[in-house]
């Protein structure tokens, strides 16, 4: 199913600059319905309080990391179907394997371009 331009997307990153970059790229790709969280814990609170269709999350964050948040999402009956795209500076093979095992829908290595994001969205919502 192609991505719905109105789908609600949660952008999770402890760095304000990265949240803004991801939101900007999503907007350029036609997705303006976005919200943001500073860490995994805040993201889980928002995911449980509202309805989201897609999560774009950083890996290394204080309070709760992206990978822990991903595991919590997959363990939650109400949230487990939400696609999660991991965006991280960790480019090691072990990290990729860990993300896949935890249930990541796809994986982007920083720095990335709008084209890469578009390509990953295309794969997740095909």
């Amino acid at each position, binding site marked *: 199913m192609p991505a719905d331009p109105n789908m609600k997307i949660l952008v999770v*990153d402890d*760095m*304000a*600059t*990265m949240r*803004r*970059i991801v939101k*900007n*790229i999503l907007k*350029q790709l036609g997705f303006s319905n976005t919200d943001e969280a500073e860490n995994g814990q805040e993201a889980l609170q928002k995911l449980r309080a509202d309805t989201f269709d897609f999560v774009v999350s950083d890996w*290394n964050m204080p309070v709760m990391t992206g990978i822990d948040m991903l595991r919590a999402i997959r363990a939650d009956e109400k949230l487990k179907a939400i696609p999660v795209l991991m965006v991280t*500076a960790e480019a090691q093979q072990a990290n990729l394997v860990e993300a896949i095992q935890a249930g990541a829908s796809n994986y982007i290595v*920083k*720095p*990335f*371009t*709008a084209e890469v994001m578009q390509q990953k969205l295309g794969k997740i919502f095909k």
Partner: protein
Amino acid sequence: MQEGSKKLYVELGDLARFVEDAMRTISEVGKPLLSGNSELPQASAHLVDLNKMTEEGTLEVMRLTEMLQDNRSLAVKELAGIVETLEAVDCLGLARRVQKIGLDLGQDDKHLTEIMTALSFQDLVAQRVKKLVTILDDVHGKLMELVVVFGIQQNGDSPADPGKASEMLKQLEATKTSSMKQTVANDILAQFGFK
């Protein structure tokens, strides 16, 4: 038997002298290190400031870039409206020229998005700076332990009270998972003759 005890006693004496010499050497080596150690918290603070400054600068560039993106987006929509009007009144030549301007502006929009994504350098720099701060805090903590354990004296005064040293080690242990509080560091350094 008595001969054996005497030999053992001499060897123990040699060992004690060796340990004493080693302790003194470590203390001597530690002195120049410790004079630099007092600068470490300041170095960490500079790095944290560096992160803050690059973040503020990056956010300002982003704000301006987003303004340009929004203005261009409005201009492209306006131009599309003008092209439609011109086509409706059969001004096809002019319509193509205006359409070309719209396409050029659209191309610029791609460049503006590239500027936005290029700014992700700030996040990568910030992550590395955070790692550096962690390393500096760790080195600082280890040097402080050295001060306490070996009673290094900058002015050659007598070592601090051993009971107090033990208390300081506990304080150091308590700050291992976080940055050492400057007051703890200052207190320890003062106890060992560092002003």
